[in-house]
């Protein structure tokens, strides 16, 4: 009898374990920001909330090294081993990741998005911003999750007031040059103690590219006309006279008011602004969190920080409205996922008003319904976004060869900004490399 009972219990146990295993749908999520404790906690909260709504779905967030995330994503896709849900970046070539797998690495989401309404009333079709930023060949391959805007000029009201400078001057290229010169101070030996303006220069940091592109676009240049396809070698405008002009301007303002020609990371410049050693600089929405916590003296963020739009090009008697850079981190579903429906339910939940409100710590929500809350709890950030969204937004060309292009762009920008090459030399060389990259792909 005891033996029978023992076997019966064992079988029951096995049945329960197996049953539990079968009943659970397991999903994995990979995002580059999971080593940020606040954002990781947000993700865990979202997972717990989601699992209450969908008890049969088990979601695991993978903790990955943020700096290695993008390369690992490439390799994982190439090995068919990526997570069910992955974060991508509209400003760093979604297509190059998507096309790493024959037939596409990411699932087309249009049929899932159509008519999908969350319990809080959020309609994915109507309430999510930037849906067109994630469409490739007419299909939506990712759902925008959070969005970044760059770049407004940030300055201290008190500094401009003390110098008797009208902040309106910051709204043009020539005005910024004039203000930067006026606010630059030096000691008796001529060594600069306060820099009127500073711009990143290093090739190692992608932020140099991010903060430089709006200058090229506003001057009328870029990589391709309007960064739109077809992306053929004959359409490259990387060595255009507009780009040369933009760099000549950046060099002149750096020379007149910036730190010396050494390489500078954006993260070298930001602390200088926070302490008041840099009078004004360009900033993106995500910069706001560090400005909010670290700007000196305490309280300066709310009382003294002010924004001016990215300057209008006004050189050579021409006028060109500012062009901003916009990018975001949409969520995509792997085409290899065994549970696409459940994966979509999860990314849809990540767009609920509550989740989007919490994500405001990092960037701007994409759910329109979460924006009023974001603007009320983060009024400065709201002001920043409101200013940025008045202007044209552009993103870099989404080409499969983006990684190689990025390498060329960074080296070119660095060479020019540290004065190793003239803008013409470096841009000509860069364009020649880009032609080779595009032609190599054709072969």
């Amino acid at each position, binding site marked *: 009898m005891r033996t029978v009972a023992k076997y019966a219990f064992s079988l029951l146990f096995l049945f329960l374990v197996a049953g539990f295993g079968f009943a659970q749908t397991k999903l994995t999520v990979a995002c580059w920001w999971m080593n940020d404790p606040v954002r990781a906690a947000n993700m865990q909260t979202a997972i717990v909330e989601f699992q209450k709504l969908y008890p049969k779905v088990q979601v695991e967030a993978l903790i990955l090294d943020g700096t290695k995330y993008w390369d690992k994503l*490439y390799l994982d896709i190439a090995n068919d081993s990526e997570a069910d849900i992955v974060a991508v970046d509209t400003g760093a070539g979604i297509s190059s990741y998507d096309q790493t797998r024959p037939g596409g690495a990411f699932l087309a989401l249009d049929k899932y998005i159509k008519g999908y309404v969350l319990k809080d009333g959020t309609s994915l079709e109507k309430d999510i911003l930037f849906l067109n930023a994630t469409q490739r060949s007419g299909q939506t391959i990712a759902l925008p999750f959070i969005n970044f805007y760059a770049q407004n000029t940030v300055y201290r009201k008190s500094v401009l007031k003390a110098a008797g400078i009208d902040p309106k001057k910051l709204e043009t290229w020539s005005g910024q040059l004039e203000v930067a010169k006026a606010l630059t101070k030096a000691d008796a030996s001529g060594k600069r103690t306060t820099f009127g303006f500073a711009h990143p220069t290093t090739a190692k940091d992608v932020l140099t590219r991010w903060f430089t592109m709006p200058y090229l676009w506003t001057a009328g240049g870029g990589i391709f006309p309007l960064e739109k396809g077809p992306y053929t070698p004959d359409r490259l405008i990387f060595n255009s006279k507009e780009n040369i002009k933009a760099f000549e301007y950046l060099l002149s303002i750096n020379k007149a008011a910036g*730190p010396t020609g050494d390489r500078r990371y954006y993260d070298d410049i930001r602390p200088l602004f926070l302490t008041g050693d840099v009078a004004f600089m360009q900033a993106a929405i995500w910069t706001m969190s560090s400005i909010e916590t670290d700007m000196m003296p305490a309280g300066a963020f709310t009382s003294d920080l002010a924004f001016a739009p990215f300057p209008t090009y006004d050189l050579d008697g021409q006028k060109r409205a500012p062009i901003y850079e916009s990018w975001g981190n949409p969520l995509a579903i792997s085409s290899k996922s065994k549970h696409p429906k459940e994966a979509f339910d999860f990314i849809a939940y990540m767009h609920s008003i509550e989740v989007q409100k919490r994500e405001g710590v990092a960037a701007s929500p994409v759910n329109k319904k979460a924006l009023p809350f974001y603007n009320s709890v983060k009024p400065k950030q709201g002001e920043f976004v409101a200013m940025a969204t008045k202007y044209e937004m552009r993103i870099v060309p989404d080409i499969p060869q983006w990684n190689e292009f990025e390498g060329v762009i960074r*080296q070119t920008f660095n*060479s020019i900004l540290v004065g190793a090459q003239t803008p013409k030399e470096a841009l000509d060389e860069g364009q020649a490399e880009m032609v080779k990259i595009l032609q190599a792909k054709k072969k």
Partner: protein
Amino acid sequence: MKKTTRRGIEATLFILPLLTLVLFVAIPLVQAVIMSFSDYDMLSGSREHAFVGLDNYQTVWEKARFWKMAAITGWYTLWSVFGKMLLGLIVALLLNAKFRGKGILRSLLVIPWAMPGIVVAFLFTLFLDSEYGVMNALLLALKLVPEGVPFISRADIALPVVILIGVWKNFPFVALMLLAALQNIPKELYEAADVDGAKPLQKFFRITWPMTFSVWFIMLILQLVGTIKEFDLVYLVTGGGPALATNLVGLDIYDQSFRFFKLGIASAEGILLMLLSLILAFIYYRYEFRKR
């Protein structure tokens, strides 16, 4: 234990080194050679890696940047090895002399060599910063320069700067090896030379140099082979810039492999670099063979 079983175990143990060699050297090497003849582009969207003959080598050959990189690598290797060998020899000779505190100095000598590359890179990046670096503060205080020199960002001086950093980090190893060789020279030889009235330079060229030359030569070859594939220090200090002025072939292999995932091109570059190293290794073995 039966004699046959014991012999079997012995035979297996003797085969283990060969197996290790096959697993960790031969197979990866053969794989790299195969990849260098294949269309191995992980981002191409294709899972097929077709045989493309010498296409990858041709691509490398035709890349204007490759020849620029090869020239930079040549200069970097030449001057870096020259610096390490010369400084290593001088320091070894100094530390072989009799003076107080020699032991402490010998211990201190190991520090740069023992430091991880990342620490050295970070130290020098701070030390040479044009705005806040100690080096520029000194130069400005002595009024030797009118303004801070961007040592790492000037295309004309970035290469000599990374060469000097590399020499600083690696010369202690050469010095220690040569010091060991110097200490093996019988004292009687110097005593006999003293009796014959030999001058210091004569003693160096007639006794010290011939007695340490074989170690010096081995170090030279090892340093050449090691420096030609240098990566970490240069990558960390300059990242290959500015204007590709410090872009060694090793850095491009890294970019091709881990940034652009063009493993075919990267393998072709790697094989070319390996062939160059093999030539140096061949010179070394020829020397050893002749000596015997």
